[in-house]
């Protein structure tokens, strides 16, 4: 298994190089002069030219790319054009918040999606099944931005239970985690339901039932475990997505995460910041995928063969 993990970790290198190259090219073609944005409207052309030169932006793209990769190999993500702080410092200050939000929302979505999906499958075509699928449909359809604001109005303004925005305490985490989790709960519930439906029709489930095992035990010990593989895949993908894609939730709730930092970087044409954020997210996504692949082996020992 160690060999498998090392092999997968080595695969991260081309991922990082590829992401860096793609972002470099895209940012280079994107209109908008970083020097002008930094210096503002009142700066003269001479000042802008001088800063452009100072930032090394007059060099060919290949030179800048190689310089960046060289720095990266030495653990240097560069310096933000905007704040002049090391990109690593800016990301390190926010990444724990992003991770916290991603896992808290994943926890929320799994907590509700799992029972919802299981019961919907077990009670297929019942009122509960319809209810759970309506909830899933609502979850998929509601814009996250709107849901966040509605939650704020209800839980902060009307009821006064939770702080409207910001971070720092567990209370601050609840609304963004639930809002983000609700949006993802829908697809997890649907996945659980469909994979459970597939599993409970299998012969071994019928055999277990005919042996006289209680229905609950059959569902819990025989069906659920086998239905978990697609579920784990979906949850893993969604955690990966949330590590980089919670921009709207972070914006609405003023949650200081990497997503917002990246958007600010794009708006300010802050290439080192955008690169730093995307590389961090790409690596995080790859790590989550690796963990998901390793989990397959624990859920279904037959799959451990792939680790060799």
């Amino acid at each position, binding site marked *: 298994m160690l060999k498998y993990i090392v092999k997968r970790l080595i695969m991260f290198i081309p991922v990082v190089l590829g992401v860096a190259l793609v972002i470099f090219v895209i940012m280079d073609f*994107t*209109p*908008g*002069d970083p020097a*002008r*944005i*930094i*210096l*503002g*409207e*009142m*700066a*003269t*052309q001479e*000042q802008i030219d*001088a*800063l452009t030169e100072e930032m090394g932006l007059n060099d060919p793209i290949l030179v800048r790319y190689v310089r960046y990769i060289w720095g990266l190999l030495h653990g240097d993500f560069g310096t933000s054009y*905007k*704040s*002049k*702080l090391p990109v690593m*410092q*800016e990301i390190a*200050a*926010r990444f724990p*918040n992003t991770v916290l939000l991603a896992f808290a929302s994943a926890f929320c979505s799994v907590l509700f999606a799992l029972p919802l999906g299981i019961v919907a499958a077990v009670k297929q075509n019942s*009122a509960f099944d*319809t*209810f759970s699928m*309506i909830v899933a449909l*609502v979850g998929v359809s509601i814009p996250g931005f709107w849901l*966040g*604001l*509605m*939650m*704020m*109005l*209800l839980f*902060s*303004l*009307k009821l*006064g239970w939770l*702080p*409207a*925005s*910001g*971070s*720092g305490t567990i209370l601050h985490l609840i609304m963004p985690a639930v809002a983000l989790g609700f949006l993802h709960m829908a697809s997890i519930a649907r996945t659980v339901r469909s994979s459970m439906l597939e599993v409970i029709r299998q012969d071994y489930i019928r055999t277990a039932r005919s042996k006289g095992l209680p229905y609950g035990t059959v569902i819990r010990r025989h069906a659920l475990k086998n239905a978990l593989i697609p579920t784990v895949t979906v949850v893993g993908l969604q955690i990966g997505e949330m590590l980089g894609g919670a921009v709207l939730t972070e*914006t*609405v*709730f*003023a949650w*200081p*995460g990497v997503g*917002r*930092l990246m958007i*600010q970087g794009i*708006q*300010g*044409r802050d290439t080192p910041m955008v690169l730093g954020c995307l590389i961090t997210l790409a690596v995080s996504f790859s790590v989550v995928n690796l963990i998901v692949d390793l989990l397959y082996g624990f859920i279904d020992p037959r799959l451990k063969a792939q680790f060799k």
Partner: protein
Amino acid sequence: MEKNLTKRSLSLLLALVLMVGLLAGCGGTKAEEPSAPAAESSSAETKTESAPAEKKPIKDTLIVAFDGEPPTLSHQEHNSQIATYMNYLNYSGLFYIDENLEPQKDLCVDYRVENDTDWYFEIRKDVKFHNGEALTSADVVASLERAKTMPQVANFCKNFETIEAVDEYTVKITTAEPYALMLSDLGSQGNYIIPKSLIDAGNDFNQNPCGCGPYIFKEWVLGDRVIFEKNPDYYAPERAGNIQRIECVFIPEASARTIALETGDVDFVINIEAMDLPALQENPDVTLAQVSTVSLEWLIINNEHAPFDNINFRKALNAALDRQVVVAAGVGGIGAPQYAQVPMNYPNASDEGAVTYDVEAARKYLEESGIDPASVNFNIVVSNDRRRRVAEVVQAQWAEIGINVGVEMMDQATYLTNTAQGQFDAAIGSFSNATFLGFVRNAFHKDGINAVNKSRLNDENVNALITAGLACVDAEEQAKAIGEISAAINETATQVPLYCEVLTRAYRTGLENVKVAKNGTIRICEFSWAEE
């Protein structure tokens, strides 16, 4: 059949429950409470309770919500308004700009001008920086010399030819020509004073923003907040408020900022959206301060491109536009319609020669221009939704005289680059400055081309009048010059002014001494909580 009916009833019930839940969330706030009128002046009303024997402020912390994070706290390395508000907390200058945009003495106790070009400033002797060092003229010289090397703020000290320390508490600044903006330039945050010893040591003023202002920088939690604490050794305690701790938090979403204010999570919101105003006006816990500013929102037309190089065509565009309609339909009535090329909120600014709304006159100008409106084809570039709405109103009105234009949305970075470099025909933008002369120097003088002079006006008469105005140190002469400059710029119809922004600042009732300057600036350091 029965089973289907049950399922349908259940689905209906569920939908109903969800709707009720959502409507509850959407409902108005505190509708049952009596409404209170909002303050509508730059000097906001305060609601103070009768004072008991022992007076104590109702709070000791102020939480201010900004829509973004400052790029840096180093006052000489940015041109961000958010960072400027924070700089006012922990740095001080020889002068500061008050709510009427007048420079007032701060670290300077007295000054005199000799030969119109030699300025002598006597500085306070009782000032200590946050690191404990005493302020001397050497610190002033070092700070201003440093500002000259910083491109973000160099514009505000480029006329300081030499800066010398005459003695320990006197500084002499010499300009090549008489210079009218000396005091207001010294009130700009880029010219605020920092310790020479730290400059010499290469201190990073972003990480260690050491000044001598009323508050001391405590902590910057990246992405979340910046915290300041009261400076116990502040040299002018009578000008500082009674607030012990100020937290500047970053809430990018406008509605979230408003909700945070209503819940009391924050005490002051810098930017309020027009759509949130009605709810806030009804909230007795919130006070509003509205001010018509010198920030002019205008439709910039590139005078170097045809057909905008034709003055009659420019006048036709100006005359065909009803600014009342622009303000009403474009920005929900929150703006002061403007026909003059310069903001009328500046003292002595004149609308003489400005082209006013007159469709018949517009048709006449068009005829005199010799340009067939059907042959005209250009886009109005905008960078946000508000400006897009305004552009659509303009589009509809110009269509009435046969000029058809498109609207093109661009992100802010591209917009800034393209408009500064003249790669556009028409765009909606805005500009403000603490002084009239600063405004026209940047926006209409040839030296502003490739920067703020986006219409790229290069009119010899206007250039000469602005240069002469900048040399008017005498107040009466300056007032006369401002009138002449206004009229000359109005004559050029160089761009299409739309409206002066009306800014709203909102805060928890009980906060006192809130003054919003005519350029929208606030000095948070002067705020106080009411005492109980």
